[in-house]
């Protein structure tokens, strides 16, 4: 069975990427259970969802921030999780690090260049179950107009009842996308973490 869902993020604190990762992870986690075929839709609890990133720099505190605006689509094959698909788009200018001046700098041409490249896009190419609670979600990430493969590790936790917890990690090498500004003072690695909870139904 293939279920196609379109998830559009609410205006605020809407992290569709987390929805997507969570739903695919949920599908994968339950794929080899007969009952899984009925669990084709999951609803993310926005109050338990956060998509954040961390960047290190020399002589400057670790910078932590988040993206607040997302949009995505996904298609889940409950019988064959490998056939599931996920696509999402992140608004580059929705970056927030806790200072409007800092936000503007990161949106500017030296970093995200949000005017020229308003969207950061991810499209899955492969979903693999690693073990009982972890999946590898592989796809193509397009950032600053450059497309490179990216693997997201998703850990799935059963929280009891119809609630699932997810933590997804990915490390993005910003130099691979041509975001060279500030290197090597600002690290090349950007660590992405999505934590979320999903509800069945």
């Amino acid at each position: 069975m293939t279920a196609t869902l379109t998830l559009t993020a609410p205006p605020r604190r809407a992290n569709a990427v987390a929805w997507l990762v969570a739903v695919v992870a949920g599908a994968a986690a339950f794929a080899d259970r007969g009952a899984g075929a009925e669990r084709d839709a999951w609803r993310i609890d926005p109050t338990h969802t956060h998509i954040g990133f961390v960047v290190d720099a020399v002589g400057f505190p670790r910078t932590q921030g988040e993206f607040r605006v997302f949009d995505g689509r996904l298609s889940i094959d409950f019988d064959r999780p490998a056939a599931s698909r996920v696509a999402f788009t992140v608004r580059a200018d929705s970056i927030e690090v806790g200072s409007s001046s800092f936000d503007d700098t990161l949106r500017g041409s030296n970093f995200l260049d949000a005017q020229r490249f308003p969207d950061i896009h991810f499209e899955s190419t492969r979903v693999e179950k690693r073990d009982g609670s972890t999946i590898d979600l592989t796809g193509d990430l397009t950032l600053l107009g450059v497309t490179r493969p990216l693997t997201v590790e998703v850990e799935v936790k059963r929280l009891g009842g119809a609630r699932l917890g997810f933590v997804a990690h990915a490390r993005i090498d910003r130099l691979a996308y041509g975001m060279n500004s500030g290197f090597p003072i600002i690290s090349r690695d950007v660590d992405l973490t999505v934590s979320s909870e999903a509800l069945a139904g």
Partner: protein
Amino acid sequence: MTAPRARWNEGVIALHWLSAAGLALVFTLGLAATAGNFDAARKFDLYQTHKALGWLTLALLAARLAARAVRVAPPPAPSWSRATRAASRLVHAALYALLAAVPLIGWLRVSSAIVPIPVSLFGLATIPDIAPVDADFSERMALAHKLSAWALAALVALHVAAALKHQFVDRDAILYRMWPRAGDRTS
């Protein structure tokens, strides 16, 4: 005393105290940005505010030098010895030199830094870079900025101490020359 005592022009006095306030603020922000324990966002804001105010102190200095060029300085107090006059001239020359050097070196440091974060005048204008990107040069400028800022702080302390000594120990009314709205007392 019958004749009005010599004092600075009101415009020069205003610029002096504005400069003093700006300097105190920019120095405090610089200390907080480099030595304070803040998160990345607060630190970014501290640096950006420090840079904008630093550039304004440079603009203010240019205005002060222009004002000095067209306004005659009041003559030294009659009670001052040759040595006192020479020391005063020397300290003031060094103050002006450092008031120019510290922000200029900071500007060079920012301009040549690998991390491209230009000086923004509170979002109203962006100050252009004045040096090519060069990590080693930028680090040397960072050290020079820090050392020259501390030298300026020491000179300001000396300047303030000397003014207070003249005012309250020598009682030669030196503060009167630079005190705002003191014109009332001569009328």
